[in-house]
């Protein structure tokens, strides 16, 4: 199984398949369906310094080959996570990575500081790309300056693996990736959801309480792939690719576009065992193509 191993900064993954924050709860929601130890890692629910109720109902609208969500980072805050959730999940034999969000640079720093000493949390993912909160979130991820500021501040206090989750709602994602790399990010993960909208024609009203929300699912995959490809040519740090991954073919495509590892997101809702099936599918693919290591595939696209 060593062929499946990859590294993200100092973080060793047994395989490149992980699950995306906001689609996987704290992992506990999935233990009836899969053996979490088969995954390279799990990215747990977006965590903020203070508890958040999230947005009002309705928070979801199905779209062609995807969905919009407007959850708005509902979570019980980092203190609750440290005291109640961490003790419950720390025994999982996989990398547990916490997604950190905030409405100010200070929030990101304080929240990250609370996670540094947790032995079984080897990395955090800075969410500078949530489209569903009024303050902060995506605002930090859509300009090079603000993205750099957050990463610089957190980097000072967080010595473990620092991953930065990028927003696709920008003109040039490569520039943002370069800005966070320059401030010491170990990896970038992309893409978060695309800002979108759904309308009920009969009622003449928006389907989401927040009017706009984040679009995910297979409908975004071609754009996500293109962005991974662009970022692969913009930075030297490893990329974690995501956006509509449903099966092993999708995962391989992201790796060929330049991703070192991938996250399965929305499709977990449809097939809660999808992530493990993707691990098996990648393994078969390596066998069939006589490939000795995932590293040989990363960005290795045949272009005439």
């Amino acid at each position, binding site marked *: 199984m060593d062929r499946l191993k990859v590294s993200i900064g100092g973080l060793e993954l047994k395989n490149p398949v992980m699950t995306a924050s906001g689609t996987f*709860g704290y992992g506990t929601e999935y233990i009836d*369906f899969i053996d979490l130890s088969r995954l390279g890692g799990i990215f747990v629910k977006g965590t903020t310094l203070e508890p958040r109720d999230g947005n009002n*109902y*309705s928070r*979801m609208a*199905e779209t062609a080959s995807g969905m919009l969500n407007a959850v708005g980072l509902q979570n019980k805050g980092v203190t609750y996570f440290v005291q109640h959730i961490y003790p419950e999940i720390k025994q999982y034999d996989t990398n547990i990575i916490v997604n950190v969000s905030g409405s100010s640079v200070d929030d990101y720093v304080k929240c990250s500081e609370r996670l540094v000493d947790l032995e079984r949390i080897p990395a955090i993912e800075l969410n500078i790309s949530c489209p569903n909160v009024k303050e902060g979130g995506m605002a930090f991820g859509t300009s090079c300056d603000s993205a750099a500021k957050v990463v610089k501040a957190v980097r000072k206090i967080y010595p473990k693996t620092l991953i930065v989750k990028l927003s696709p709602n920008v003109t040039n994602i490569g520039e943002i990736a370069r800005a966070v790399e320059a401030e010491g990010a170990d990896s970038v993960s992309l893409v978060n959801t695309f800002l979108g909208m759904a309308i009920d024609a009969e009622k003449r009203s928006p389907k989401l309480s927040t009017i706009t929300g984040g679009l995910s699912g297979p409908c975004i995959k071609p754009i996500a792939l293109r962005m991974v490809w662009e970022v692969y040519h913009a930075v030297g740090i490893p990329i974690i690719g995501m956006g509509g991954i449903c099966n092993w073919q999708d995962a391989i495509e992201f790796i060929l576009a330049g991703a070192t590892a991938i996250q399965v997101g929305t499709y977990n809702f449809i097939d809660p065992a999808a992530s493990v099936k993707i691990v098996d599918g990648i393994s078969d693919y390596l066998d069939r193509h006589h490939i000795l290591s995932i590293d040989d595939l990363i960005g290795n696209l045949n272009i005439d």
Partner: protein
Amino acid sequence: MLDMVVLSNERLNDQNNLLKVTPATGEKLPDTVSPGQFVQIRIENSVHTFLRRPISVNFVHTSLNQLWLLVQNVGEGTKHLCNYSEGEKINIIFPLGNQFHLPSKVTSKILLIGGGVGTAPLLFLGKKATDNGFKPNFLLGGRSAKDLLQLDDFKKYGAVYTTTEDGTQGEKGFVIHHSILQEEKYDFIYTCGPKPMMVAVAKYAHENDIECEASLENLMACGFGACLCCIEKTTRGNVCACTEGPVFNIKELTWID
């Protein structure tokens, strides 16, 4: 997750089908399936039905190893479900959600109030109540006589009262105006149906000091507590209707000012 095979798909009226399925492998349905719980059904081969469809458990026929699902044809997903033929396979995640809670004393008088396709979980609840020694009453409403579903099945488990908006069967009007609510004093009401109906029932129960549980149908993506989309505002804050519900005691809800 379980693959089920369709045994029959009976059209009950112009909008509703009764889908009877059994595990494709022949394995026995879990004994733990309870009234109020639901399944998440995968609809294959349509880009417009990306997410699973949550459908209440209408009935579990233990000896025949059948799961019954009452489907209202209201959109792309349910249209596909209504068109499944005998022998076709469907993938479901189940059982999901909590359940209705019967009172501790079997002498308690219980009324099950349903509207439209919302009557679905009440048939299974009626059976469980009867099996446990209760004598349930049913109050079922619809727009018209043809919208009152499975009346013969309900009658096996207790007295059935009906209302229709056009007066074609039972008393004319909404369930909340039925004379039985003036004539009888119930200890516990269980309700499922359109939200305005459930809110009216909850207010009636609250004003008359009757315990009441309602089964919610909030829009959801996953059905098992991961997506946080189906939240309901409760006295405990925002909770997932799929895992903390779909059945809530009305005292927990914020429907009554």
